[in-house]
């Protein structure tokens, strides 16, 4: 597949950039933070995104979607990375839609996909339990109870958990805490008895939740995919999310570079435009090279997810690891080259540093994915 966007994706990119710059720039995130907005995102913007078909980008046409694929989803995520737009796009339009369309029963698809496509339902993925991402480490229990299951446990760092209508929860139906076998996935409506959600504000002015499941009863129909063998599906859903996050980080890295280069062209020190200092030029040029490599590996991962989703894991891990390094470097170099102004809340560059740190931790940091990559490479 050629490593360029096709016409459709190119148009989507232009449209996304225009819309986000106008309707959801960093100023929006700043306002959400400063007004302590209860949702942590702007519902009007979200409705407009649904209107434009962004929420249905991975929903099959049969269920009301436009089914454009991961490259297209990545294009949107990348543009959101430039403007740091807060929305449930990743948790719902990418991960929720992937989970249901690839692993849902006909009933589950029929219930949720049209609502996701329409922007009417928000979903969240409740996977982690400790401070570091580790999808096979599951202590949350799902015990058989009558015709269904009873879920008990505690999930941390659930993106958009505080606004979700439904959560996809990993729980153990068999095996020991760290075993790969015995993990199952369940669709848990947020209003089920025994679910409690605590909102956590994170450094990036976004929202996560700690979710407690206290004997939550679900029917047998709530199981998503194979009972006891849910880890494969979970990894596939996570990989979709990781690739989307990598695309977002790529957008953020590009924007950090662009705004830093712009600052270098404008700021004076020692009587000179600082962009004339060769040491800074070389650092900016090196950063540009890294950002270009980041763009390429993200595109490769997204194309692989579209073309061969069952063989995308290595490319996705490479992308998440590489973008973890690149985006953090871009933010750090950005703050440093902005000097004292880069340390102020008034300038936007710090928002990138904070968001990129959170994106780095989410669904496996660069170290986690480097390790996963090495294992897949069998060394």
């Amino acid at each position: 597949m050629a490593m360029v966007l096709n016409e459709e994706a190119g148009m989507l990119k232009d449209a996304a950039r225009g819309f986000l710059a106008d309707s959801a720039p960093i100023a929006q995130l700043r306002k959400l933070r400063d007004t302590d907005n209860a949702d942590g995102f702007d519902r009007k913007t979200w409705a407009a995104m649904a209107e434009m078909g962004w929420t249905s980008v991975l929903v099959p046409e049969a269920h009301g979607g436009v089914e454009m694929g991961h490259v297209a989803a990545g294009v949107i995520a990348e543009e959101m990375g430039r403007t740091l737009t807060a929305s449930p796009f990743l948790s719902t339009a990418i991960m929720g839609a992937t989970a249901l369309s690839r692993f849902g029963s006909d009933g589950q698809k029929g219930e949720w996909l049209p609502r996701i496509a329409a922007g009417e339902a928000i979903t969240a993925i409740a996977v982690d339990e400790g401070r570091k991402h580790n999808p096979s480490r599951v202590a949350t229990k799902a015990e058989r109870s009558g015709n269904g299951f009873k879920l008990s446990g505690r999930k941390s760092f659930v993106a958009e958990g505080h606004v979700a209508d439904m959560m996809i929860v990993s729980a153990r139906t068999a095996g020991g805490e760290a075993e790969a076998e015995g993990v199952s996935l369940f669709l848990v409506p947020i209003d089920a008895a025994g679910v409690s959600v605590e909102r956590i504000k994170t450094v990036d002015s976004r929202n996560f939740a700690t979710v407690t499941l206290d004997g939550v009863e679900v029917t047998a129909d709530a199981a998503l995919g194979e009972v006891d063998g849910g880890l494969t599906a979970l990894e596939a859903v996570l990989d979709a999310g990781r690739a989307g996050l990598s695309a977002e980080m790529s957008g953020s890295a590009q924007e950090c570079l662009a705004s830093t280069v712009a600052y270098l062209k404008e700021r004076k020190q020692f009587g000179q435009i600082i962009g004339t200092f060769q040491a800074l030029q070389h650092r900016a040029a090196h950063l540009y090279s890294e950002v270009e490599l980041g763009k390429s590996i993200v595109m490769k991962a997204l194309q692989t997810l579209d073309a061969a989703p069952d063989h995308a894991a290595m490319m996705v891990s490479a992308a998440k690891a590489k973008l973890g390094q690149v985006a953090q470097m871009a933010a750090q170099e950005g703050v440093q080259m902005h000097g004292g102004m880069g340390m102020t809340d008034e300038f936007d560059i710090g928002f990138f540093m904070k968001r990129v740190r959170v994106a780095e931790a989410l669904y496996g940091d660069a170290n986690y994915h480097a390790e996963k990559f090495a294992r897949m490479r069998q060394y």
Partner: protein
Amino acid sequence: MSDLESFREETRAWLEANCPVEMRQPMRGEHDIVWGGRNCQLSEPQKLWLDRMAGKGWTVPEWPVEYGGGGLDKAHAKVLREEMKRIKARAPLQSFGIWMLGPALLKYGTHEQKLEHLPPITRGEIRWAQGYSEPNAGSDLAAVMTKCEDKGDHYLINGQKIWTSYADQADWIFALVRTDFAAKKHEGISFILVDMGQPGVTTKPIKLISGKSPFCETFFDDARAEKHNVVGDLNKGWTVAKYLLTHEREMIGGMGSGAMRPAGDVAVQMIGKDEQGRLDDPVLRTDITRLEIDGLAFMSTMERVADEAKAGQGVGANSSVLKYYGTELNKRRLELMMDSVGQDGLEWGADDDAAAHWLRTKGNSIEGGTSEVQLNIISKRILELPTS
């Protein structure tokens, strides 16, 4: 019994009797630091501890007794430090007056200036701010434009400073001002002491990416300073400033060293070990190992630079190496801490303030002369590379 040994015994007994038990608990955060000053709210034990220590001159053990110090030599001061550490006594007082202005006054001040300004510092009565940077000067400190006019019996100051630490809580400020606009860049600058309690001086906190506001903008609008409050010669303030910069550089660089828990220990606590007894994140383990080895090499370098200075062999500009490397190391350290703490470190406004601490370190390589300025200094002064 040697003099040092008996001093140790007396000190131990005195500390035991005089250090309030609350002052032997670890500080729980920045709010437990006693900065002193006219507006400072002290708890009873804090006040007791400060007064008792100041009474012995031990808030600044090595300063001369006549200016409120303890008059101790290095060996005795070391004993005092060790004995305080033994009972985990908190520092009774921390301040820019102690770290920065004091050393400058001791070196460049007149006897009268010392008598006027040093004792209140030692008793925590006056809190000082530092007024160096300006909005359009940044790293180029010698480009200060704050105007200081001779009005016969006093000076009149107009201009703006930025990055003045805690200026909103300080009582006085030591500032670089331009007293001769006709002279060359480095030659028309004076080092002056200004009372901030006058209407002509106002401050405005700057909100940082960490959410905190440890720095301010400080505005001088027809502010007044007495003529005897110029330190060093008029128009020769750059000499005093350079001395203080070196001092500050070493202080900030030193923050990259041993005070914190080793990164490896934190990581093990957060992440645990695998079956072979290794940190259960092999990639992070590599980075932490390299950090700790660099940390050892850095601490050895701090020690060596200090010992060389004592032996009169030092390369003066090596303070730039310490500032540069120490702050970069500290940034690396905090990045690895964030990697270790994972999701738990990302909460905004969490009790342990991990994220705020991480973000704060990003300023280390900017304040007190950016890393780039330090590399320029090394290149020019040590390597003697030419400028074009």
